[in-house]
């Protein structure tokens, strides 16, 4: 029986359990906070920063990423504010430079007034939400793909030998990709790098 925590989200008084994140607490009562890298079956990641919320402490505010911030007694949370909205708009515009046609991004773009042409189009339409990599590691436990490199050169990459054995029977990550980059990457590695039959 875990301890109960009382907090306020968008003016509503909420009872949550100790150890829950602010995002989980919000979801539990049907309050929507936009996310891209969150998935209920996966460990919270904190990469997209879209679920940022504003915490109020008297006159002073602080913004935190709700999918990794644990609930605290007496917390006052606002899921929308000028600064939060501005941040979300900024993030969306940066991601739209990669995947302007992603349905999820387009819908969010409309809500936050994000301009898909703000930045020059980038060749890669991966938005690095990490859902595919994390799903394969944590749920499927096949480790058939992973991240490689870092910074602006970071990418997802399939391991051909493992993917050749496992993926066609699984593809559990396919529905998770918000941009279909994953599917394209899979097709590429299948045609170029899978070991030929018999190996």
């Amino acid at each position: 029986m875990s301890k109960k925590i009382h907090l306020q989200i968008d003016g509503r008084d909420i009872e949550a359990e100790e150890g829950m994140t602010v995002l989980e607490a919000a979801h539990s009562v049907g309050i929507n906070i936009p996310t891209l890298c969150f998935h209920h079956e996966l460990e919270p990641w904190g990469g997209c920063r879209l679920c940022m919320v504003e915490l109020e402490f008297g006159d002073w505010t602080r913004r935190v990423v709700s999918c990794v911030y644990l609930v605290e007694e007496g917390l006052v949370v606002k899921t929308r504010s000028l600064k939060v909205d501005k941040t979300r708009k900024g993030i969306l515009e940066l991601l739209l430079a990669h995947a302007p046609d992603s349905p999820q991004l387009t819908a969010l773009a409309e809500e936050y007034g994000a301009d898909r042409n703000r930045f020059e189009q980038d060749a890669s339409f991966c938005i690095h939400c990490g859902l595919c990599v994390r799903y394969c590691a944590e749920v499927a436990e096949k480790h058939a793909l992973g991240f490689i490199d870092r910074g602006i050169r970071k990418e997802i990459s399939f391991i051909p030998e493992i993917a050749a054995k496992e993926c066609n029977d699984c593809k559990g990550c396919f529905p998770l990709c918000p941009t279909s980059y994953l599917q394209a990457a899979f097709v590429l590695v299948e045609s170029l790098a899978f070991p030929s039959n018999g190996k």
Partner: protein
Amino acid sequence: MEAERIDQIIDEYQRTPDLLIQVLLAIQSEYNWLPKAALQRVGEKLQVPLSRILHIATFYNAFSLVPKGRHKVHVCMGTACHVRGAPRILDTVQDLTGIGAGETDLEFKFSLETVNCIGCCALGPVIDIDGKIHGNVSIRDTADILEQYD
């Protein structure tokens, strides 16, 4: 690359996953690159998935997944060296060796890398070749320095 030697290197460390990076550094140091077979062996012995090893092997600058040349040329691009003209030194080295940063020439003589600070900032610009540091390098010195290596 013999499997026994790889096993020996791994066994010098406790076979715990937290020592993964130290093991890879030892293999890199011995072979000058990380052969895939070695990575697979490391994964087996340390009980770590290959995807994590490949992330590490590409995340960190010290590792190479392709064989390197006999001589490792590192041009420091730290701030102090930059201010003293490192970019032009790099251009010159590239012109003289025919390869760009991150590349190895066809004879496997030189591998060129940029490095983000060796800590010899007072001697900038600095080129490190095989661990020997050449400081206060001028464009004219560069050709002379490279000629010392065959």
